[in-house]
């Protein structure tokens, strides 16, 4: 036991004296969460648009005012000719043009139908479709108000978004980024710290000593479990206070599942270290072998349901997928363990498998 504690103390010395690894440990989570939260987002704000108003009457003015007062759009200029639309897009400043047909108010009264066309610059498809959705929503809202005045009750389709009514991307990014960071920190840092011993030759001395393989592995892993939990808490605090990410479920359950995921990531890190001889290989393997699948196949960015079947099958062996399902359920839906026990069991199974494999693969000799 004393031997084990001595080993862990040494690991902490390594971590706290290496500025680079300290930065990766604590700087990156904060940077990533802020980056994803603020910069990389599907929401639109202050998009420059232009108006082409062929009728210029009361109703069109009302709609334009409504658009003006929303935080999503900024009316950059009025254009007067269809031909100018492309010229405006080519300048690159505006992203969309709203076109009111001639006699808008009149049509609305006589034909009961008036047309408003949205032309968007789809060089950025996501932004374009979001703009189209937002304008539709604004117009619907306008119609609703108008109908109340007219007392003409018609069937109106109303959709309501549960758990994330405003479709905030933060609700998706916080669990996703947390998963990526825990994976990266846990797997990459352990694999690097074990291969560093190989590279520096200290592994030779550790082998020619009474310390057992599992003691070395646990000793290597323990500090990172501890630091990763701190990381998870930092991310949760940032998500909660900066981005208003709710934590509807039990915090205790959330931490338990996080620890489980951290351990599975750590055991993957050990596995990587058993097959790589240098810190560089370990880093590349962690980045390419773990990070890419986590980002691409975990459902964090691309929905798993819309992937081809083989990809969907592959996504099942990625621990991150299950972890994202679990923490989203806890944080957003506030569920208890009885709704996520299946995913939890899968994660436990994977962790046990990786740990057994890495202890088996740990070399008691140099070759």
């Amino acid at each position, binding site marked *: 036991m004393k031997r084990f*504690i001595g080993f862990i103390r040494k690991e902490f010395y390594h971590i706290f004296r290496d500025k680079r690894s300290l930065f990766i440990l604590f700087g990156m989570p904060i940077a990533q969460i802020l980056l994803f939260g603020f910069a990389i987002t599907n929401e639109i704000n202050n998009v420059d648009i232009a108006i082409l108003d062929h009728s210029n009457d009361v109703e069109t003015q009302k709609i334009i005012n409504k658009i003006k007062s929303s935080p999503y759009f900024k009316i950059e200029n009025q254009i007067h000719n269809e031909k100018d639309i492309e010229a405006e897009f080519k300048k690159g400043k505006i992203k969309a043009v709203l076109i009111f047909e001639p006699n808008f108010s009149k049509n609305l009264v006589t034909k009961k139908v008036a047309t408003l066309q949205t032309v968007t610059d789809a060089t950025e498809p996501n932004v374009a479709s979001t703009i189209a959705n937002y304008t539709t929503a604004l117009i619907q809202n306008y119609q609703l108000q108008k109908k109340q005045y007219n007392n003409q009750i018609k069937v109106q389709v109303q959709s309501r978004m549960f758990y994330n009514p405003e479709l905030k991307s933060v609700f998706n990014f916080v669990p996703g980024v947390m998963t990526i960071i825990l994976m990266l920190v846990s797997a990459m840092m352990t694999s690097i710290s074990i291969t560093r011993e190989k590279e520096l030759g200290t592994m030779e*001395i550790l*082998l020619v*000593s009474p310390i057992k393989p599992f003691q070395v592995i646990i000793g290597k892993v323990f500090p990172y479990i501890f630091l990763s939990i701190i990381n998870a808490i930092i991310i949760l605090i940032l998500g909660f206070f900066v981005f208003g990410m709710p934590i509807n479920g039990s915090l205790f359950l959330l931490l338990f599942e996080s620890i489980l995921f951290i351990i599975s990531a750590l055991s993957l890190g050990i596995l990587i270290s058993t097959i790589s001889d240098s810190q560089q290989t370990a880093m590349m393997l962690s980045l390419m072998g773990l990070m890419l699948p986590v980002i691409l196949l975990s459902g964090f960015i691309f929905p798993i349901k819309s992937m081809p079947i083989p990809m969907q099958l592959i996504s099942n062996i990625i621990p991150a997928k299950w972890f994202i399902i679990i923490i989203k359920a806890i944080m957003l839906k506030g569920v208890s363990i009885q709704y996520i026990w299946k995913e939890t069991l899968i994660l436990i199974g994977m962790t046990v498998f990786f740990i057994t494999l890495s202890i088996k693969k740990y070399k008691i000799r140099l070759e």
Partner: protein
Amino acid sequence: MSIIVQNISKSYKTKKAVENVSFEVKKGEIFGLIGPDGAGKTTLFRILTTLLKANEGNASVLGFDVIKDYKSIRSSVGYMPGKFSLYQDLTVEENLTFFATLFGTSIEENYDLIKEIYIQIEPFKKRRAGALSGGMKQKLALCCALIHAPKVLFLDEPTTGVDPISRKEFWEMLKRLQQKGITILVSTPYMDEASLCDRIALIQNGLLLKIDSPENITKNYDKVIYDVSTKNRHKLIHDLKNYPSQYSVYTFGEYIHYIDKQMKFNLEELLQYLKDKNHTEIEIKTAIVTIEDVFMDL
């Protein structure tokens, strides 16, 4: 016998590292493995410290088999690998404490054993190991290898890259450790250190060429070596190599070592030959045979 090596062979892929090597090291002996880089010294050390498996042959340390009883060997020997293998980001004291706890002991418990070495580095005990000089590093590494009072000490090229004074001090320490009953297997590429061992094995290209005490090895050398020097050293080597009965010519310190093929070698003839070649300040005398000379002839 502390170490027994029987017909050990080891190859990496296609390259043979060690071939059919056998030797024994007695208890309390300083045994030297002498040979150039790439001779197979490190491979032998790794086999004996249970880090590598030999392809053929048996070996045992302190009566423990290197394959079957590898755990017993690992907890009872001290090993200092060729490359400086301590934690550079830990201080001198932290390194020593770590290795003490690793072996389930403490600095205080075995302080007597390392005292003479440790007091030399103690003034720097708060300094990180990476910031120590070469000689200091080796002393610290030796302390760390000794802290658990091992019965056998494996030192793989402990003095490589160390200044001559530190080298001398290092060997004095080894002599003192020997007096405490510790068996030491040491390797070195420096021939001058060979004479400080009780017995040496000359190793080259994975083959053991000779095993004996340094005195016997030089005493049993059957040829006469001459120290030759003239004013024009470069021309001298060239001319000696063209001398009809030459056996071997190589530089050795300030002299050129010359060995002749014939048993009845006439010194005067060589002298005359050199004079004819316009050499001046000619000096020829019989040289004292060293390990290096024996090695050159193998």
